């Protein structure tokens, strides 16, 4: 029948359009990834991998802030520690500290350090001008390395924050080891 044939053709056309829409939305899910990264970049929410710029270099000599350092490793055959556990700085004053890291495995390993701050609020006033956390670090078998962090605490830091803890955690870059042992679902 021509009438039912026409409806069937019409149905198929709509089916194809809706199926294309579904496939496009599947792609859209993946498009959200660069979109999200762009938003974080533009708004500066997530710039872990870029040096900050110190906007105000006026040193506030009237107060002193204690900075404590901490180093952790996550599931990684490295030893990682700060060379000094704490220092005192004036807000606005440039300070440099060093961390020591060594690879205990007999093959090269790549890791990435991710910083965190306590109190969390202090993070936005802590400007790192140089840091090993801006790039992935590859250590040869048994290599030991000393890595600097240069930072300025912004003088805008609220008065009641007297101690800031800077804590780094080194993660192994995913995928390097997974290919080797063949078991992705490690717990």
């Amino acid at each position, binding site marked *: 029948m021509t009438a039912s044939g026409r*409806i069937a053709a*019409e*149905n198929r056309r*709509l*089916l194809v359009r*809706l*199926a294309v*829409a*579904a*496939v496009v*939305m*599947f*792609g*859209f*899910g*993946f498009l*959200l*990834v660069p979109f*999200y*990264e762009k938003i*974080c970049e533009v*708004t500066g*929410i*997530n710039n872990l*991998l870029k040096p900050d710029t110190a906007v105000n270099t006026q040193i506030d000599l009237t107060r002193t802030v204690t900075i404590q350092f901490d180093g952790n490793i*996550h599931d990684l055959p490295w030893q990682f520690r700060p060379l000094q556990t704490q220092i005192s700085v004036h807000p606005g004053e440039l300070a440099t500290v060093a961390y020591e890291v060594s690879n205990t495995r007999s093959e090269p390993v790549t*890791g*990435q350090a*991710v910083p965190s701050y306590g109190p*969390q609020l202090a993070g936005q006033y802590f400007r790192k001008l140089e840091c090993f956390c801006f790039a992935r670090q590859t250590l040869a078998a048994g290599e030991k390395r000393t890595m600097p962090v240069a930072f300025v605490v912004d003088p805008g830091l609220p008065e009641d924050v007297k101690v800031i803890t800077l804590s780094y955690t080194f*993660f*192994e*870059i*995913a*995928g*390097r080891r*997974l*290919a080797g042992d063949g078991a*992705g*679902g*490690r*717990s």
Partner: protein
Amino acid sequence: MAAVMSDHAHGDHHGPTGLMRWITTTNHKDIGTMYLVFSFIMFLSGGVMALTIRAELFQPGLQVVQPEFFNQLTTMHGLVMVFGAIMPAFVGFANWQIPLMIGACDMAFARMNNWSFWLLPPAATLLIGSFFVPGGATAAGWTLYAPLSVQMGMGMDMAIFAIHIMGVSSIMGAINIVVTILNMRAPGMTMMKMPLFCWTWLITAYLLIAVMPVLAGAVTMVLTDRHFGTSFFSAAGGGDPVMYQHIFWFFGHPEVYIMILPAFGIISQIIPTFARKPLFGYASMVYATASIAILSFSVWAHHMFTTGMPAVGQLFFMYATMLIAVPTGVKVFNWVATMWRGSMTFETPMLFAVGFIFVFTMGGFTGLICAIAPIDIQVQDTYYVVAHFHYVLVAGSLFALFAGAYYWLPKWTGHMPDERIGKLHFWCSIVFFNITFFPMHFLGLAGMPRRIPDYALQFADFNMLASIGAFGFGLSQLIFLAAVVKCVRGGEKAAARAWEGAEGLEWTVPSPAPHHTFEEAPVVK
């Protein structure tokens, strides 16, 4: 199912018999029945998990299950209820009712319809089977947040594949519904004459096509992070676990409306029938449904107020969320206005519909409270949130499903449901539901975290009360099973128009609806 089969035997059905009849069927009524039976089995499975959770929480300390297994239970309870029970149940209603309501002989793509259903049992087997593999089922919460979901054992992979399969099934079902509604309406059935159930399902189907692929993308990213060395969500490789939450909730919030809009449709059919008045504000109901669907894409981050979003973002998502209360309020107002000065009777479907309006609205109000960012930061991940979403999902979606089941059972089986059993089911359900979930508001406000197998002593009394209510609620659902079985087996013969005030094309065909209906399209004036 045997009873249903014998019931259909007198219809003019041709083709294979026995099990093959169900595997090969392309009839929308058969497929609708299979969807409903499947979702009820999944509802009972998810219910057993919930009762195990409540048994553990009956007293402080660990008595019944280990914490690892408890986490698997909370996760699987959510996944099974959302993807196995509520969503397929609504698709079952759509299969049965939409062709009957718009005067079409069947769904647009009958063969694809068969596929949409038969993808579900393998997916459910994969999901439930993950309990029995080394490491157990996924325990990352039903939201499967990274980084936890990137770390779990193979149960997680099985859950991911199950979600893929169920997603494909949903998308095929949704496409079928859109094409059926847009192209297969009887002559004279204009869009604005369509029953509201068809409207809400049309809009829901568009939502499904838009967001199920996004969920598929999100879990695919988890899968490649787990096995193929990508770093979408792993901070170490330059990814971001918070991004998972954004992608998930971009799906997840429209998903909430996917589970409630068809419920609104069912209620909008039932209230006019038993108030014996046309639905108040039909056009505004259609526009309200569409506005809810459109707004649902701009509120997802209200699930993420504690992730360190900028204040501007929090304010935007807070106001956008509160805006959704406006079209929802229009709907509740219209239902109440439909009942106003109606000649109301309270048969079981109407009891569930009125119960729905009362209890769902309470869930809506707690939703409004959770939408306020400073309050949400306090109650995030507490039992307050658990109480809120069970008020809208159990007392909302599930009660609407019960209402719809009692309402259309005469059309499906040819017999009127037993009013005494139905009323017993309603009163047990609504009383035990409130005993279970109302105390959870207080627990949440007092700070009891969700998804934890143990709790501090001061929470003991309310938890005991909630557990008693939960067992009462769970057992009450066996009354529903009894009501349906009794109705399938026999009972008072139903007329074509089974309910005195019922309007619509589905009530013009005999009860039970013959195997083939509307082969000659009716003309709607």
